[in-house]
């Protein structure tokens, strides 16, 4: 319950117009801080939602696969250069961002993650790091401006941020093979 309140506070805070404007003024912060924070806000609210609608999650997301696919779809959608632009210029898209990231990505991610098996988690790690690596290369080496609302240098910056993100995921992915998981459970 307390988690849900923190999540809600974070959610509302992120949507405050000055906060949202500031976060969206820098491309990297828009994609790598604001968007993940929305996902986290959703994750924090998940236990409360599961408590309110226990059957829904058990029934429709039994093995976690639908949830994780939904998560990936939403994440990939927001990685499109175009959606970033339109979130800034089209009001409806901005609203869709506010709703989709916490509730269609954050909530299913937390619900699915514990249900997924080792294999499923590994697939997600690999896909995410490949995706981030690809986005990084795309943004760094793209000769043209992909987003109308941001400078080219911001685009390159975002590319490097993606590469570091990919690197972080890969390091995490690899280290878990060397660590005895049972030590921590």
């Amino acid at each position: 319950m307390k988690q849900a309140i923190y999540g809600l506070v974070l959610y509302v805070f992120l949507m405050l117009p000055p906060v949202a404007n500031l976060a969206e003024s820098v491309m990297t912060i828009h994609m790598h801080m604001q968007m993940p924070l929305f996902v986290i806000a959703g994750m924090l609210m998940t236990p409360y939602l599961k408590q309110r609608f226990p059957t829904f999650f058990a029934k429709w997301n039994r093995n976690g696969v639908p949830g994780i696919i939904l998560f990936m779809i939403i994440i990939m959608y927001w990685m499109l250069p175009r959606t970033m632009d339109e979130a800034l210029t089209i009001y409806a898209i901005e609203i869709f961002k506010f709703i989709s990231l916490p509730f269609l990505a954050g909530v299913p991610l937390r619900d699915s993650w514990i249900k997924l098996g080792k294999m499923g988690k590994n697939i997600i790690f690999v896909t995410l790091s490949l995706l981030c690596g690809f986005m990084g290369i795309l943004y760094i080496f793209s000769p043209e401006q992909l987003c109308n609302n941001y400078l080219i240098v911001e685009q390159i910056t975002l590319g490097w941020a993606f590469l570091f993100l990919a690197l972080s995921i890969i390091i995490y992915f690899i280290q878990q093979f060397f660590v005895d998981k049972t030590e921590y459970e």
Partner: protein
Amino acid sequence: MIKNKHNAVAIIVVLLFGVALFYVGTDGFQAYTAESARTAKLIDEKPSFPEVTLEDSQERMYPFSEFEGKYVMLTFIYTSCTDVCLQLEVNLAEVYDQIPEKYIGEDIVFLSVSFDPTRDTPEVLDKYRSYFESDGETWRMARIPDQQELDSLLDDFGVIVIPDGEGNFVHNSAFYLADREGKLIDVMDYTKIDEAAQKVTSILDAEAGE
């Protein structure tokens, strides 16, 4: 078993949702960047050139209807730009050279519009014009002194101009082609010179052939 069914249904629903989302979001898997979406939309909607007053490098003032009856090849620039605009104008000069001379001035006019009216005075434009060997007549460079008119034009044509706070602008670049009635009929990639020149020539040829 019955429970698994729900799960399978959920997967299908989610996947369908994903396909739909991407279909809508990218105009049917066409436009992955806002720029491509914008050009597609412009070509689709063919907006008219709004009534604005231009002031060119020879300090002549006239409305856009001055060019009625002629095709107009347009670019949007600012002269303090150090990268894209230069390239854009160099490429435009090449297109200009590739168009058969008989059409130039008669059936088609070239026009570079500055969106930095404060700094791009007629003198500045005149100097800038000379870099590209534009004659100032069949290829004119002009500013729109009225900020409101300028904004409405940029808005109609979806030209995005962001000042970066240091006197520079970030903007999207393309060749725009308006028809004899002043309607926008095509937006072309400014890096593909030959393609643009061929396209314009073939339009003019087709009309001349009639």
